[in-house]
């Protein structure tokens, strides 16, 4: 390789990378951009009060939530009053269901008998549409945060629990034999063998739990007894026929859902590098 050829090659490779990146972004976002442009045009032509143009929705979102001072990350007080409580409850609900789901799933998955006995009950509990239980929780718990977090937990825990139990059951018996011959402690077995081998399944459960908890977060806030949150914002705007705000909340929920999922996928990709690589080698 000559010294003259090197910089040339490097430049062209960097150029290729950039072009690839641009192409990737275009492919991903172009359909959405076209849709928004069409929507904008259509709503302007139709001039309907029910369907404000996207530009107006964005303006409203900015005014309501993102026009705060720079040292508050541009968030307004209103954002703090409606987005923060919602996200707080969702995070708490998801955290508790993850911890409880994994712990219970581990216990169930290790005990063939317990799983066999409880499986019908679990499957039954899982298929109950979670929103139908919200009225029950309203009766059982204090209105507000307690009831809302309970609703989130009751819907989000099932996929985590069942997936963990399933993942734990499929631990390679040769690995367990190895742990046994080396007389590893129960804690070490759980930490170094059982949880890592169940992790791919646990993550699949987490993805489901994430979208369920977002749904239940909003749904539980739509009910009477709520005083803040995005769902509350939604009912409020509806009663005042404030359609731009209504649409703003809907768009924000979409963005949040997308964002959370992207973050979870990134974490999963990092944590399960070995899993994807080992699978690729095996095939």
């Amino acid at each position, binding site marked *: 390789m000559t010294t003259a050829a090197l910089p040339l090659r490097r430049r062209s490779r960097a150029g290729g990378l950039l072009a690839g990146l641009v192409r990737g972004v275009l492919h991903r976002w172009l359909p959405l951009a076209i849709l928004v442009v069409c929507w904008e045009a259509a709503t302007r032509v139709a001039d309907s009060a029910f369907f404000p143009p996207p530009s107006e929705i964005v303006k409203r979102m900015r005014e309501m939530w993102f026009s705060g001072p720079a040292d508050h990350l541009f968030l307004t007080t209103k954002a703090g009053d409606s987005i923060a409580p919602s996200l707080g409850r969702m995070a708490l609900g998801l955290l508790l269901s993850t911890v409880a789901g994994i712990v219970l799933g581990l216990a169930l998955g290790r005990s063939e008998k317990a799983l066999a006995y409880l499986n019908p009950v679990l499957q039954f509990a899982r298929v109950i549409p979670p929103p139908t239980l919200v009225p029950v929780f309203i009766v059982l718990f204090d209105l507000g945060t307690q009831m809302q977090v309970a609703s989130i937990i009751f819907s989000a825990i099932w996929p985590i629990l069942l997936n963990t139990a399933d993942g734990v059951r499929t631990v390679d018996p040769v*690995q367990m*034999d190895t742990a046994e*011959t080396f*007389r*590893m*402690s129960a804690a070490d077995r759980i930490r170094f063998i059982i949880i890592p*081998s169940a992790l791919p399944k646990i993550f699949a459960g987490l993805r489901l739990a994430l979208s369920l908890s977002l749904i239940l977060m909003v749904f539980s806030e739509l009910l009477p007894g709520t005083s803040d949150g995005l769902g509350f914002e939604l009912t409020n705007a509806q009663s005042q026929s404030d359609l731009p705000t209504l649409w703003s909340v809907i768009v924000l929920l979409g963005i949040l859902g997308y964002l959370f999922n992207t973050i979870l996928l990134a974490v999963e990709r990092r944590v399960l590098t*070995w899993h994807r*690589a080992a699978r690729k*080698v095996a095939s």
Partner: protein
Amino acid sequence: MDKVTGMLEITGLGHAYGSHRVLQGMDLKVSQGELVTIVGPSGCGKSTLLRCIAGLIRPSEGKVVLNGTPIDGVPDGLAVVFQDYSRSLLPWLTVRDNVALPLRRRGTGKAERRAQAVRALASVGLDDAASKYPWQLSGGMQQRVSIARALAYRPSMLLMDEPFGSVDAQTREDLEDLVLQVHRAEGMTILLVTHDIDESVYLGDRVVVLARNPGRIREELPVSLPAARDQIGTRAAPEFVRLRAEVGRLVRGGAAKDGPPTVHEKPVR
């Protein structure tokens, strides 16, 4: 033989998986510090025998006594190199951490455990694979990792189930000599299962030949070769040649007489 303390004592051992009888009426004594090789045709129950000795399965008949106490569960100071070596390694840990993992209960610090792991890896010729993952290695290298893991653990008894099955000839000879060396240096009691008749004679203080249908001991042959062995000289010794022929005759002749291995659906494990 000068060692007298019966370390491992197997009497009337028999095992059946459900209605499928695999082992029957086995009696075997292994002294402290002895290296016993076990040869036998495929499917005669060699792995099952090792699993009974390791305390991983409770035999349906007979008993296994170790240092005077009947085995109930895995005894302390035991290491096993499984036939399914690749499945016994954890794909989410590096090779070094795989080897270091069993050392956790010894209470040594993390750095020390890792140093021990790296030393064990070096002894099987895998110095530069320490930070790789098991699935990045060839089958033979994975097999050496599982051997390194057992050696790093410094067991007083080592059970090896066809430990050199997928390494190349040169590495195989090196590993055979490594086993002889740790056996001599640390006085480790070793039971080694092999398919290879030459290997059984080259390594063993004693060769146990198994027969199949059901699995039982056909013959025990003491190996009167000197303890110091080398790949070229030992294999040319008249005693080696004689023993090899005899073991070969026992294995092949027996296999022909006892019929093919019973085809039995082995549950996917």
